[in-house]
Structure formats: C-alpha cells, structure tokens
C-alpha cells in the first residue's frame, strides 16, 4: 500500500533503460507501439487542421499523452478485455479494433458512423466526466459474473478524479473486487485548472488504499513503465485480485480542445520543459539505439498513416448528410407512439 509514493519508471528521457528495468514489451511490439503513437499524433494534427476549416467537430488531442494511452491499452487482449474511455484515448479505441474511418466520419458530421462494431469491446467516448467509471465497474463485475475472464480498463483524467462518481465507482469496485483497472491520466490540467488546484493530495494514486486496493504512480510519458504497470494490474484483475488505480503522470502538450486557448493560462517555460519529455522522443531514441528505427522507417510510417487518414476523410466526404430521422434512430427499441408521430412529423416537414 506504499506503492503510491514510488513513481515507477523504466525508459528514461534519454531513451535509455533505467538499470534493472524489467521490460515487458519486446522490441517489435515497441515498434508497433511507436507507430500507434505516431498515428495518434498525426491524427490530432489533421483533426485540428480540419476543425479550423469547419470540417470537423470539437477535437480533444492526445498530444503528449501517447505513452500513457498506448502503453496501457497494449496490456489488454482485445479478444476478451474491454476499454471504457473518457475522450482522449484514440489509440486505445483503435487497439480494441474500432475503425479509424468510423472515428473520422463521426467527427466529420456523421454521428451514426461512430457506432462501434459488434465484436469490438469498447464503449463510446464519455463527455460527462467520471460517469464512465461506475459503468466500467458494473461491466467488469458483470463479465466476471457471466464466467468470463475479461478485464476492463477505464480511463479518466485528473479533473474527472474529483467527481463523486470516481469515489463511488472505486468504492464499489473494491467491495465487489471487480476486474477493473482505473487508468488515471494526470496530464496536469483540467481545461485551465492546474493539478495543484484539483486536489491537495500528494498523488492521486494515494486514494487506492481508501478503497481497499493498490494505487500506483507511473511516469506517464514512459511507454514501457506504463505498459509494465498496467500489465501487472490486468494480471491481478484477471486473477481475481481486484482493481488497481494507476496514476500516469503525463502532460497535456496541446490545448484542452479546439475551443480552448491555453496561452491564457499556461506558463511557456513549463510547457517547454514538458515538451522535452515528449513520450514519442524517448521511444524513438530507444528503438533507434536498438537498431529498430531510423528516419526512413519514420517517413514510411508517417506516409502510411497519412494515407489512412486521407482515405478515411475522403470516404467521410462521400457520405450523405444525415437527415432528421437520425435524431430518432436508436432511442428506443420500440419507440412510444408519440415519438413515432413526432418522427413522421419531422420527416414530413423536411420534405416540404
């Protein structure tokens, strides 16, 4: 229960391993991880550019948090485990098998395209902060009750950790020993609110013992440490040993979302220092040192990513705009007569 104070780390900013680090990802998987991190980074850049052109909805980039997201989700088996996201974890959605083209189309004005395919173990993004957490606990508990050996990995931010739902979810998870891992991405900010004003706790992971399970702090910019810590937590959960709260300490390098202007509230020096710890840099260094990465590979990876994005955007642009019926779809299995009448009314009006 003192795990909360030691901050776990393996891959140093230099790209070298901390002496004695027990690396849980072989080099080729680290390479795949880097590719996913790059995809996330380039997706963000494209989404922001598109948003500025009015062709994309509000976007919350993961810039700076790619190690926290990728390192954690890679500890899951998408064939049996679930991800319950907040809203900044694109890489985890893709890892679970959600289609990039679906994410793109949904953000480009085709919400119905965002539907997660039936075989993909992922819940929709959650805008109401922390509301996903009791749901993740119920899901984990229910899957175990149904005899599955599934684990649920749920994401939340430092801001979300202040909501009552965080507490209720953690407490219930402890009581029912739900196979759930809470991956708290402490990125230093909740919009403009710095971590310091969010809680007086030394670490947010120190809350674990108050629910009867471990809290672990990890360098959230360290792909390898995040993976190792999450893999341990997933292992405990799968073995029936209950939940873990992981605080991945990272930093939001971009803005909160495309409506935000962080220059109003951030300190450029702090941001510059954080940029030096960019999680992509150190993975690149690590792989390069292992002879598993070079400029050519990087260029090829980026081209492949950009191609995927281009194709997804082009596809989305060909989709017909949704009509009023989309407001009524999927509200009820069997809509009340009054709702059916309204639907008919809305459709008739749209035709006038």
């Amino acid at each position, binding site marked *: 229960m003192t795990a909360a104070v030691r901050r776990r780390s393996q891959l140093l900013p230099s790209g070298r391993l901390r002496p004695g680090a027990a690396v849980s990802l072989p080099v080729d998987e680290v390479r795949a991880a880097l590719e996913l991190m790059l995809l996330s980074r380039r997706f963000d850049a494209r989404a922001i550019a598109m948003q500025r052109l009015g062709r994309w909805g509000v976007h919350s980039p993961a810039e700076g948090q790619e190690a926290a997201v990728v390192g954690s989700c890679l500890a899951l088996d998408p064939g049996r485990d679930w991800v319950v996201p907040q809203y900044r974890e694109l890489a985890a959605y893709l890892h679970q098998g959600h289609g990039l083209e679906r994410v793109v189309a949904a953000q480009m004005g085709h*919400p*119905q395209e*965002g*539907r*997660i*395919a*039936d075989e993909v173990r992922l*819940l*929709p993004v959650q805008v*109401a902060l922390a*509301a996903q*957490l*009791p*749901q*993740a*606990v*119920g*899901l*984990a*508990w*229910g*899957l175990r*009750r*149904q005899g599955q050996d599934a684990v649920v990995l749920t994401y939340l931010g430092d801001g979300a950790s202040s909501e*009552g*739902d965080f*507490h*209720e*979810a953690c*407490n*219930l998870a402890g*009581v*029912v020993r739900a196979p759930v891992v809470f991956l708290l991405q402490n990125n230093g900010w909740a919009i403009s609110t710095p971590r310091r004003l969010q809680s007086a706790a030394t670490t947010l992971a120190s809350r674990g013992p108050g629910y009867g399970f471990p809290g672990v702090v990890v360098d959230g910019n360290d792909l390898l440490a995040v993976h190792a810590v999450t893999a341990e937590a997933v292992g405990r959960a799968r073995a029936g040993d209950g939940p873990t709260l992981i605080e991945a300490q990272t930093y939001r390098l971009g803005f909160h979302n495309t409506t935000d202007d962080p220059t109003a509230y951030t300190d450029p020096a702090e941001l510059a220092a954080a940029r030096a710890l960019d999680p992509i840099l150190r993975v690149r260094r690590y792989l390069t040192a292992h002879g598993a990465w070079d400029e050519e590979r990087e260029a090829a990876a980026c081209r492949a990513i950009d191609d995927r994005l281009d194709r997804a955007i082009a596809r989305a642009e060909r989709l017909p705009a949704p009509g009023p019926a989309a407001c009524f*779809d*999927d*509200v*009820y*299995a*069997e809509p*009340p*007569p*009054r*709702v059916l009448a309204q639907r008919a009314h809305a459709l008739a009006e749209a035709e006038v």
Partner: protein
Amino acid sequence: MAQLTMVEALRDGLRVAMADDPRVLCLGLDIGTLGGVFRVTRGLQAEFGADRVVDTPLAEASIIGAAIGLALAGLRPVAELQFLGFSHQGFHQLGAQLGRFRTRSRGRFAVPVVVRAPFGGGIRSPEFHSDALEAQIVQMPGIKVVMPATPADAKGLLLTAIRDPDPVLFCEPDRLYRLGREEVPPGPHLVPFGVARLARAGDDLTLVAWSAAVELCLRAADRLAGEGIGAAVLDLRTLVPLDVEAILREARRTSRVVVVHEAPLTGGFGAEIAATIQEEAFHALDGPVRRVAAWDVPYPPGRLEDHYLPSLERVVRAARAAVRD
C-alpha cells in the same frame, strides 16, 4: 389466484422474473438480508443467493451506473433506490447515461435496466422520502416511466419492465404497498406499457391519475356518486409511453377532465395532460382541464402532509366545478 398486497405482488413478480431468467439480478441498499426497507425483496436473497440479490454500498449514482455496466455485460439488472427522492444523487447516471446509452452508442448497446423506487406521501416519511419526481424524469427521453396503482398492475408492469429492452424507471407508491389486497395472476403475468386502465366507469367527467392518486380518485368518485355525479377514473399506468388515445377518448366522451397528482402543481405532469387534451380535443371540452396537485412548496414534514397533498375534498370540489362548466 392469490389475494396479494402490492408488496407481495412485486415480490412475486421479482421471483417469477429471477426464476425464469438467470440474467436477472437485483441490487440496491439493504435489499438482501433485510429485504429492503419495505421488504419487497424479502426472502429473495435466501432463495437466489447473494450474488443475485446484492446489497451495495450507499451510493445511488454508482447503483445506477453499475446497473448500466451489468446490463452491458448481458445481465438484466433490477436496481432499487431506497426512495425516489434520492434518485437526485444519481440523476446524471439516469437521464444522460441510462436513458441515452442506446442513442449514444448509435444502437450498439441496449441497457435493459429497471430502476425501482418507492415514493409518495401519506405515510409520514422523513424529509425527501415522499418527493414525487415523475415530471422531472419524463423530461429524460429514453427512459420509460411506469407508475402502477394496484397490486396486479404492479406485478404485471414490473414483469413487462424487466423484459423491456430499454431502461425503465418503476415508481412504487409506498402508501399503497400494504393498503389493500387484490387477486394477482400467478406466473408470468404481463401488463403492456402505454395502455391506460379505466379504473372506474362514469359519464359526467373523467378523473385522470397515476400511482397513489388513482386510489384517491376512486374514493372521490365514490363520494361524487353519492351526489349523483358519475366520475370515471383513468389510471395512466405508464407516463412514458403515454396512452394519449385513451386520454383523448375520455376527454371527448365526458368533455370534462380533472387531473390529480402528488407532485407540485407548476410543471407537474398534470400540465402535460391538460396541454395535450386542449391541443388535441379543444372543441370537445365543456370547460378547462382542471388540476389538483400538491402546492408549489417543498414537501413538508410528515405532520403537515395532509395540508399539502391533494385531498379528497379538493378533488371532489374540482370535480363538482368541472361538472358545472
């Protein structure tokens, strides 16, 4: 057929559902060993085990939120809130989450959750225990709102709720829990949603009500009968879906309607009934749709509730006035 109280009928309904479908599980405060503060679940934990009748920590939002997750895992959770008044502690999991999960997931995820909650006045409950919040919940699209008024309906609507693929808020009138008995069909008795019940015939006016107010209206109709006034009583049974047809049929038939409910007047669901009737059957009315409701003040301490709730006297007077229109 057995003569059951509403508590017994609900328990019977839960037992039928649990025996019938291993996915059904109950969760909530004190529902296990104690059987809930009103004993609706008494004996069920002994019968079905502590993993199917689960005492949860004291936290309403997580009860509803966890029920969502359990439903996503393929179970059919029946959550009990100790009192509807405490649904506010979990309102964000109710309206924005439970009610919208199917929509939010563009149809991928159904959440067949039933949330049961006792409510209503007349039994001198402590603060917040009597609050009638149905009008607030009706403004949460995606959730069906069920309001039984008799033992047989309580069982039949509960079984329908548990089988419904969508979320249902099931409000139980605690004043009627043990007030009387009636024949309740055994086994899988189902009462469909959206079909109002003519609880009493009468040709001079129609009293429209739901939940415990139906019982009040029946008493009022008795009194009115003594004065030669024939008052029909329409029990809506479910507010979502709403049996608009039956409401309009009655409005057209008797031309005079009085709606009765326990929530405060302003913005209560009676307003919707009145608005709908005048919108759809304006010319059939002899006079306005009248409302008899609680006053626009907080639910008072138990000793004052008789001054607050719609009384027999007030219903009768409104009915007399309607007949004079």
